[in-house]
């Protein structure tokens, strides 16, 4: 018994020494404080690895809680609206630029808050000027780099009948521009502000009176007439432009860093596109400065604030700022020189921009958004909706209600046709402006019922034919197809359909097809095949998510 006791005693002593000596065992460590960040997606490539690196360090607050950073990329304006609506409650908001902050503050106060959402001046993380990205041969045709170029040149190209033929390049077709939707993305709102300034011939003191001027409106309308479609995020436009080449887009409003990233890919042999260059608009531009705003909101605790400041200090530290340079950003740390890849080899000029435009007041920005709605490029849209027997119950109900919401996102000048397909193809309404018939269309949509087979290919063909016959080439032309099952009864075959819609002689201005695979029985492959080549997109939806799907499709218009 003695020996047993001795053995146990020794084991006990040894164990207690081990435990005491280890200090804080991570398993028993306990508390964590989460810093949630919603940020503009252009800095995703730089930020995501840094979030992982920081989290792996297991930094602690003074109270001993481990700091955990959760970062979600989201369009700048979209995230602002979601915060104001109470849909998301992040600790930190980091939009692409400060341009939208006064508007966000105005919206926040408007929803019963006594103080601003963003107070003081948040620190900049990285900098990148807003530029017009253009294929180098096209920019050279316009006189780059010797001639200063800007919005005035874009407006001229946009309204030119001959397009690129006037410069000896008929194969490039018409001038095609892209920028994001101003209601969703920073570069979109910045584009229309810049266009408005250019139209008014000003660089500061933009007033509501300026917005009433017919010349200003005409200028913005001219530029917008060259748009092939809008979209949700700047990164998305960059990807499209660089994947599809000069026939899809001549130019897009992007951030300088996206051009640097593309040119780095090209120089490394990973992209076989033509070179692209940054045009710094001669009328002046804006900076994207990626402010790190620790929100002045009731859900942010003092401990979260301290933790968020710690992560900010990490991001502003030299190694992280040097990393930003590699991704084509201009570091916020001024002691880091602007060197490669911010150079001519990558299509950019670190001595630019030469001047900036003054950020207008929240009121004037709101006025510019209204002006844009009036002059933006309308869409000629055909919605083809599956009403076969399998669409019963929740499916048809949610498809109906979300279509109604979608219609309400369209403007009066947009032209909408709705085709219902089962074993028949029925046009619920023809391709004509919504302004004249909105109530009528909404009423008809509420009355849609299901029943019968699925003539998917025939419906898409009909939609496409309709746009070819009656669509205005000066409008964005698109088809939205919603289907829950495989084609069972079309006379047209899939390959026949593909031949029809795959003809992209008009490049980026061609009709785009967006498909919604509704529910698990939908034919994902076929719907993807139909959407992809046209430059449209395929979505998956179900009765719970269909509203969001339609909302996203609306960002293209």
């Amino acid at each position, binding site marked *: 018994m003695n020996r047993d006791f001795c053995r146990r005693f020794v084991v006990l002593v040894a164990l207690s020494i081990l435990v005491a000596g280890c200090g804080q065992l991570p398993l028993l460590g306990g508390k964590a404080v989460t810093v949630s960040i919603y940020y503009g997606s252009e800095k995703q490539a730089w930020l995501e690895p840094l979030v992982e690196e920081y989290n792996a360090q297991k930094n602690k607050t003074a109270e001993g809680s481990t700091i955990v950073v959760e970062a979600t990329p989201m369009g700048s304006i979209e995230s602002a609206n979601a915060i104001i609506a109470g849909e998301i409650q992040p600790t930190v908001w980091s939009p692409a630029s400060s341009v939208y902050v006064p508007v966000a503050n105005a919206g926040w106060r408007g929803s019963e808050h006594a103080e601003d959402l963003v107070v003081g001046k948040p620190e900049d993380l990285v900098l990148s000027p807003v530029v017009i990205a253009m294929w180098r041969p096209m920019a050279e045709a316009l006189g780059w780099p010797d001639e200063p170029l800007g919005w005035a040149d874009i407006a001229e190209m946009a309204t030119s009948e001959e397009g690129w033929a006037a410069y000896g390049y008929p194969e490039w077709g018409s001038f095609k521009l892209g920028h994001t939707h101003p209601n969703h993305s920073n570069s979109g709102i910045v584009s229309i502000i810049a266009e408005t300034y250019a139209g008014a011939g000003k*660089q500061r003191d933009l007033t509501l009176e300026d917005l009433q001027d017919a010349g200003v409106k005409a200028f913005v309308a001219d530029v917008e007439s060259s748009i092939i479609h809008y979209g949700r995020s700047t990164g998305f436009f960059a990807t499209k432009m660089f994947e599809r080449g000069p026939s899809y887009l001549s130019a897009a409003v992007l951030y300088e860093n996206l051009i640097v990233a593309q040119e780095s890919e090209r120089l490394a042999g990973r992209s076989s596109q033509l070179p692209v260059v940054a045009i710094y608009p001669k009328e002046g*531009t804006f900076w994207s400065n990626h402010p790190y705003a620790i929100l002045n909101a009731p859900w942010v605790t003092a401990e979260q604030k301290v933790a968020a400041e710690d992560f900010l200090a990490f991001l502003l530290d030299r190694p992280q700022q040097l990393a930003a340079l590699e991704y084509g950003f201009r570091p916020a740390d*001024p*002691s880091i*020189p602007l060197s490669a890849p911010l150079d001519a080899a990558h299509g950019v000029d*670190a001595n630019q921009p*030469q*001047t*900036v435009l*003054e950020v207008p007041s929240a009121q004037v920005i709101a006025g510019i958004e209204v002006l844009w709605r009036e002059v933006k490029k309308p869409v000629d849209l055909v919605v083809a909706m599956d009403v076969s027997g399998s669409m019963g119950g929740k499916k048809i109900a949610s498809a109906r209600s979300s279509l109604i919401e979608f219609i309400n996102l369209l403007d009066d000048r947009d032209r909408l046709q709705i085709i219902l397909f089962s074993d028949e193809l029925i046009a619920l309404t023809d391709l004509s402006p919504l302004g004249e018939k909105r109530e009528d269309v909404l009423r008809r949509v509420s009355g849609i019922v299901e029943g019968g087979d699925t003539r998917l290919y025939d419906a898409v063909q009909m939609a496409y034919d309709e746009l070819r016959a009656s669509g205005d080439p000066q409008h964005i032309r698109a088809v939205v197809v919603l289907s829950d099952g495989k084609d069972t009864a079309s006379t047209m075959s899939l390959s026949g359909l593909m031949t029809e819609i795959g003809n992209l002689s008009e490049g980026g201005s061609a009709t785009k097809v967006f498909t919604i695979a509704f529910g698990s029985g939908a034919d994902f492959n076929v719907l993807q095949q139909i959407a992809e080549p046209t430059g449209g997109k395929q979505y998956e939806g179900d009765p719970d998510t269909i509203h969001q799907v339609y909302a996203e499709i609306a960002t293209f218009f």
Partner: protein
Amino acid sequence: MPVTPRLNQTLFVIYLLATVGVFIAALVSPPVRAIAYAPLRDLILPPPEPVVVHVLYSTEKAAWINEAAARFAAARPAIEGRPIQLEMKKMGSREMYLSVLDGTEQPDLMSTASMLQINLLQDLSTSKFGAPVVNPADSEACRPVLRTPLVLVAWKERAAALWGNDPGSELWQQLHDALTQPNGWEAYGHPEWGYVKFSHTNPLKSNSGFQTILLLTYDYFGKTDGLTSADILSDADYQRWFIEFEGTISSFGDSTGTYMEEIVAYGPSLHDMVAVYEATAIEHAESAVGRYGELQIYYPPATHMSDHPFCVLQADWVTPEEAQAARMFVDFLTGREMQELALLQHGFRPVDDGIPLDQPGSPLQRYAANGIRIDLPPEVEVPPGNVLNTLLDFWARNAQR
């Protein structure tokens, strides 16, 4: 070797003696204590409580003072065995004294950019608390530590297009004209540069902005002393000129140091020219070249010196030990080593007159080609508190954005 009971016993005694010996050594000898098993040590003999000195300082001296704090700490300063710990926080000058007034900050030692704010704090804290928290007249409690004049800093390429030669006494008037040019830079042959963009910090938050509007005002009246509230409030031409000038500025920085960083980071597209301290310009001269180009410094015809007073506060949250520790730190800052560091590494003029400004390595000589010079223009007189308040108030009502 066979394990006999005797061997067992011997081993046990040796082990016991060793254990007890280490235990006693840990109690008695500090070096052993430092490496001995921590929790046990702390239970038996807790380490001496540090003397924590909370220091608030204005941003433009951040680089120098953080280096100074590190060197101070490296010498392991202590008061009666208690280590001195500095907790440093940076803040704009006016924000600093306002936060002491409203109680959000309780520093032991504070250093605004100039005596302007210390004087204001003395007045205002006497009204609020019944007794002043700072005493600028007491040279033991409040000591100037660095000196630097207010200057204009421009991107060289831009300034050269604006001013072929140094504008000298015409500086403010010519600047006013350039800023209010309806065609901006087009009038100077460079339409691509847009408007001539000048800026300074918010006078309500930061010392350099306050100095700028003071110098502007004095210059308008063609004098360097005797500024009165009546000058500001009764002269309609002055008011129009001042409001025109300030109206061209689209946003004001919060604090000089952080503001200059922005200027260098963004480049001339955002600001052609700004008003900051000579030392701030020197600090960023190299970075500027790496970003966008050379800087050019212009001295206004009359200037105001910021003398960076370090004041130990008189308040119930400052213990005698903390006050003593604070004074030790200030002694260190005014010592030869830190004063030379301030000049050679950071471009501040030392308060120690024995340090030659033209010694080898002095930035006041190194940046001569950028307009830096050793001799200074005359200083304006600091008006009494009520006139300062009139000017600030006028700015707040008419120019603030």
